[in-house]
């Protein structure tokens, strides 16, 4: 087990993710065979329309799902390690809602029309501010209750301000754009969105990958970690920056998709012997897998209009969250 176990788990998740991504590209209103898809992905095939469908419509959507999922899964694992609490995740800590607010603000004031990067930048900036506020208010050694209450308060504030922007929104078109950030969706995305999100998300992933050692040490508490040579203050800043970049970039293209960061690290933790550093890569891959699956589900579930991705993950995630709280209560008594 140990390192080898974590490695083979990651490999397994990677293979599963690749297969799921391919199946995800196969799903859509135009029924295409797997062979046609493979050809179109390679850029070949005799039908230009087919290449267009696969490469410009389905592939970006699948890739975005993986990017968003990896960002959320990894951020959840990092935030849980940092706060030493299995309930921490970008949606509950207010990070996602803050990023959504940032995106809506950029839309509302029309910054994104003037300067295309304004939307992801404000989303990431707001995500960083939200997470820093959480750390300031809930403190370093936040108990579960304080953490959840602070996260709820920050989320509510961000959602209220988002609603205010919607309330005052000048036209119905802008309104429907803003609603997207509350519900979360990967509908109608193009490669522009991929190129917008990927650099920032990847920068966040790299930063978060560097926090593993510190997160391991933190499982002994802040003082013991410091005595092991970890600069705890710096670690905290890197973690906030990394999650803000990844979550901000995700929210900027897909809106808020909740509970991925909660569910994925929790399910994988026993498989990596509860070691925070070894949880990072599997959580990123597992998050990508989960969002890809969820995005397949919203396309396959028959409904009058396509379900929103964030709605589905929340519907599945909230019972899981409640179950986790009950389990923790049982452990504390």
């Amino acid at each position: 087990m140990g390192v080898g176990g974590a490695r083979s788990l990651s490999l397994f998740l990677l293979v599963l993710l690749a297969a799921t991504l391919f199946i995800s590209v196969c799903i859509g209103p135009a029924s295409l065979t797997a062979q046609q898809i493979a050809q179109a992905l390679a850029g070949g095939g005799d039908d230009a329309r087919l290449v267009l469908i696969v490469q410009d419509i389905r592939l970006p959507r699948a890739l975005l799902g993986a990017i968003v999922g990896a960002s959320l899964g990894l951020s959840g694992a990092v935030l849980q390690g940092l706060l030493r609490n299995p309930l921490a995740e970008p949606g509950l800590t207010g990070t996602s809602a803050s990023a959504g607010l940032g995106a809506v603000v950029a839309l509302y004031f029309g910054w994104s029309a003037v300067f295309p990067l304004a939307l992801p930048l404000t989303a990431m900036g707001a995500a960083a501010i939200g997470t820093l506020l959480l750390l300031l208010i809930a403190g370093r050694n936040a108990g579960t209750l304080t953490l959840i209450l602070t996260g709820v308060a920050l989320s509510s504030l961000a959602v209220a301000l988002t609603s205010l922007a919607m309330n005052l929104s000048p036209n119905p078109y802008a309104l429907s754009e803003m609603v997207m950030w509350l519900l979360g969706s990967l509908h109608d995305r193009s490669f522009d969105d991929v190129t917008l999100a990927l650099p920032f998300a990847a920068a966040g992933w790299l930063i978060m990958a560097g926090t593993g050692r510190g997160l391991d040490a933190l499982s002994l508490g802040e003082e013991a970690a410091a005595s092991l040579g970890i600069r705890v203050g710096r670690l905290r800043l890197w973690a906030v920056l990394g999650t803000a970049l990844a979550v901000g970039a995700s929210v900027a293209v897909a809106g808020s998709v909740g509970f991925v960061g909660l569910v994925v690290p929790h399910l994988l933790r026993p498989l990596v012997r509860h070691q925070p550093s070894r949880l990072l890569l599997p959580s990123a891959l597992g998050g990508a897998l989960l969002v890809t699956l969820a995005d397949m589900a919203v396309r396959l579930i028959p409904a009058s209009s396509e379900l929103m991705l964030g709605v589905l993950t929340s519907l599945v995630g909230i019972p899981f969250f409640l179950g986790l709280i009950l389990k923790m209560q049982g452990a504390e008594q």
Partner: protein
Amino acid sequence: MTILAGENIGVSLKGRQVLHSVTVAAARGQMLGLLGPNGAGKTTLLKALAGLLPCSGQVAFEDRSIAALPPSERARRIAYLPQGTQAHWAMPVEEVVALGRLPHRERFAPLDDADRAAIDQAMTEADVANLTGRPLNALSGGERARVLLARALAVEAPVLLADEPIAHLDPGHQLAVLDLLRRRAEQGDAVIVVLHDLALAARSCHRICVLDQGHLVADGPPTILDDGLLDRVYGVRALRGVARDLPYLLPWERTR
């Protein structure tokens, strides 16, 4: 031979002066017991000596200021065992002990043979080898305390600072841990240990320092724990006796 020396250490926390110009030194081959009533500043002094707290004055490891040491170098020289036995994740025991090797390892590097040997040795010394594979949060308080001690031993630092390492242990394990720390000292390390049990401190330590309200009020062999000191600092009187040619004391009643 002095290895870790704190000179005129002063600490104020939230505007309150917690330590007043305390000078204390840890020597190789010596187990130093840090005593004092609740709130006397023992933990604060230990943290300052570990370089975990900004303080006035000087803390030097072999004539080098520890403030000037890079954190990982400082971590290899001074092991610190904090108070309490909180367990945050269900990490298996041997993984917890392995965290003590972090200062010796490059980023992303796996455990090498020296690391494994240190982990095994520490687990044997702290009597937790039989807990291998058990998750930390499923252990009893005493078992957890010994696992965390093993984590600190695994650092293999020449200086070990332990804050109340026997607080949650039964008498058998209290004696075992104190004997283990004393053995470490006699093998050439410097050990500073915060204790509340006067009888065990007098029995186990080579030297005693007593803090009272942030001042160092006594520093010397265990015999400094005389009636006058116990009365002034703790407000207690002790029963005393000699058994097997060794003096012992037992705090028995309050004097005020």
